[in-house]
């Protein structure tokens, strides 16, 4: 099978959906000629024109509001907010408006929009360009939340998100754009709410998100040499969450490690640990372990950032603790 970059997978998903459905359009800061800060939209302008590949002022509230307004009258906008840190400029639109409108209108309005954004640390972007803020949006009923970890998943999930009638926060990791992976030529969709078992094992379950999936797999490969069998699950979408796949794995391995790049306090790991404790605590032979970033802002200097972030070694250590 061919291999392509993650950013190319995003581009292909956008392109294919724009060909398929004239209601789909891309809107955001610098998405047209410039192609977006990570070049995921580069080339769309030439094919689809400036009406459907629309540069905006630096006005995040107006961008998300425009996407919302267009969506409830039948369009399917794909909004590009170049850094997830900047979504904090438009949380009113995302949390008060986008997430609520379907419910507030008794199910009438359908906010069929995707908010593509990008997060994550690892290249000294410091505290305002490298956050992992998914837990903020995880908390809000009405939003779907997707965090792909591979080019294959990114393409299939983005296509499904664009066709979904719900608002989808689609969070890409900035250090995944230049990762390569196998992506078939033909069309495929990956439904939201379906976890992927990236590696099967019987000794311990590791649930990891986004870029941490890669490190979890590296940790699993290392531990395999010692005869430790690690199952690695990528939920792919945090909302809806495929609880069943995770619970089934925990019932099999009796041990759970949760890995995410966001800081630990109040993160997705806390929520998932609570779900597993509520629904499968009798199956657990050890405390649930969370491997996450330190509860600090993301620092700038590489030595500090490395200390802040989880990595393969920290995941290995976490797995060992779960096996004690």
């Amino acid at each position, binding site marked *: 099978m061919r291999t392509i970059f993650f950013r190319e997978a995003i581009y292909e998903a956008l392109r294919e959906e724009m060909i398929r459905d004239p209601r789909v359009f891309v809107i955001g800061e610098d998405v047209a000629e410039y192609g977006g800060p990570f070049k995921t939209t580069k080339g769309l302008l030439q094919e689809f024109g400036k009406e459907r590949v629309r540069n905006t002022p630096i006005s995040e509230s107006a961008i998300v509001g425009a996407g919302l*307004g267009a969506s409830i*009258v039948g369009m399917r906008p794909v909004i590009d907010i170049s850094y997830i840190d900047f979504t904090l400029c438009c949380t009113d639109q995302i949390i008060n408006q986008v997430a609520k409108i379907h419910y507030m*209108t*008794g199910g009438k309005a*359908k906010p069929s929009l995707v908010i593509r954004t990008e997060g994550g640390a690892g290249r000294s972007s410091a505290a305002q360009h490298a956050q992992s803020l998914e837990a903020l949006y995880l908390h809000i009923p009405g939003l779907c939340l997707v965090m792909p970890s591979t080019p294959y998943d990114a393409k299939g999930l983005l296509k499904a998100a664009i066709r979904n009638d719900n608002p989808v926060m689609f969070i890409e990791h900035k250090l995944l754009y230049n990762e390569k992976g196998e992506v078939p030529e033909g069309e495929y969709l990956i439904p939201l709410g379906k976890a992927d078992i990236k590696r099967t094992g019987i000794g311990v379950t590791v649930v990891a998100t986004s870029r941490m999936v890669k490190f979890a797999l590296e940790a699993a490969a290392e531990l395999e040499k010692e005869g430790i069998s690690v199952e690695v699950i990528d939920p792919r979408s945090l909302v809806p969450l495929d609880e069943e796949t995770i619970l089934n794995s925990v019932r099999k391995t009796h041990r759970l490690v949760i890995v995410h790049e966001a800081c630990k306090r109040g993160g997705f790991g806390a929520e998932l640990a609570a779900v597993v404790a509520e629904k499968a605590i009798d199956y657990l032979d050890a405390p649930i372990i969370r491997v996450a970033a330190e509860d600090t802002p993301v620092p700038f200097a590489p030595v500090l950032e490395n200390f802040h972030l989880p990595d393969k070694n920290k995941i290995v250590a976490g797995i060992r603790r779960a096996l004690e």
Partner: protein
Amino acid sequence: MEKKDYLWLYRKMLEIRRFEEKAAELYLKGELPGFLHSSIGQEAVPVGACSVLRPDDYIISTHRGHGDIIAKGANLNRMMAELYGKRTGYCKGKGGSMHIADLDLGILGAVGVVGSCIPIANGAALAAQMNRSGQVVVAFFGDGASNTGAFHEALNMGATWNLPIVYVCQNNCVGLSTPQCVHQKIKDISVRGAAYDIPGETVDGMDVLAIRTACEKAVDQARSGGGPTLIEAKTYRYLGHFVGEPGTDYRTKEELESWKKKDAIDGYRNRLLRQKIAGEDELARIEAEVEEAVRQSVQYSLESPDPDPRETLEDVYVTV
């Protein structure tokens, strides 16, 4: 304008006034949950604006939105039922007074956060522009909203993209309790159009025909590809910020009385009689019909079922 157009304006303003009065009365008796923001005094603005819209045009409104929504044609029964929190209400009891929408009538909804409706209105206008549908959007908001970032972001975007939209500011002289002279230096909010290179016009918000004329020009311009206009209608909120709040701590009685002397509905009624557009009998018949429609909306609501508590869990997500 034909006679029926003149009478429509009267009927709609009266519908808003009587509906708001009835809702306030019910609220003060403890029959309605939550809280109500009454638009009594401001009726001419949405009625004048909506009188020049097509059925498929859109409006978006605010927390003080009953008048805007009635002006666009909302069904009083379903509106009142929503205020009661009944299953038959516009939002099945999930939105309440501040969030009434009827997408089939082009009512995109009422937005409870000040200023936040304006960017959303732009989106509907963008869709209309992209689809070449010829539809126009009217975004209603107040003087308070004109100081939000959302207002400025949205007007810049709407102007830059030449969107088919009319921004109608209902300047009722006060943002909750803060008088306009305390919350902004400008006297006429319409001057802010100049910052975005779009026309700005201030109009007497107690004169429904003046509003209609201004909006007609702006709507024609928007529909023909000429881009947005900012219209400021100077009006007055007779009641407090919400029903039950007297509104007297921060305004003088004299000011209120001076505005009531210019009451849009009384003034328009006299004008219809004076200019012999309608006779006393015709107007009395409209008044009786409106009273009856409002009475029926209460009856309808009282006879409607409450939502099943389990319906709390529905409509969080679109299910296929």
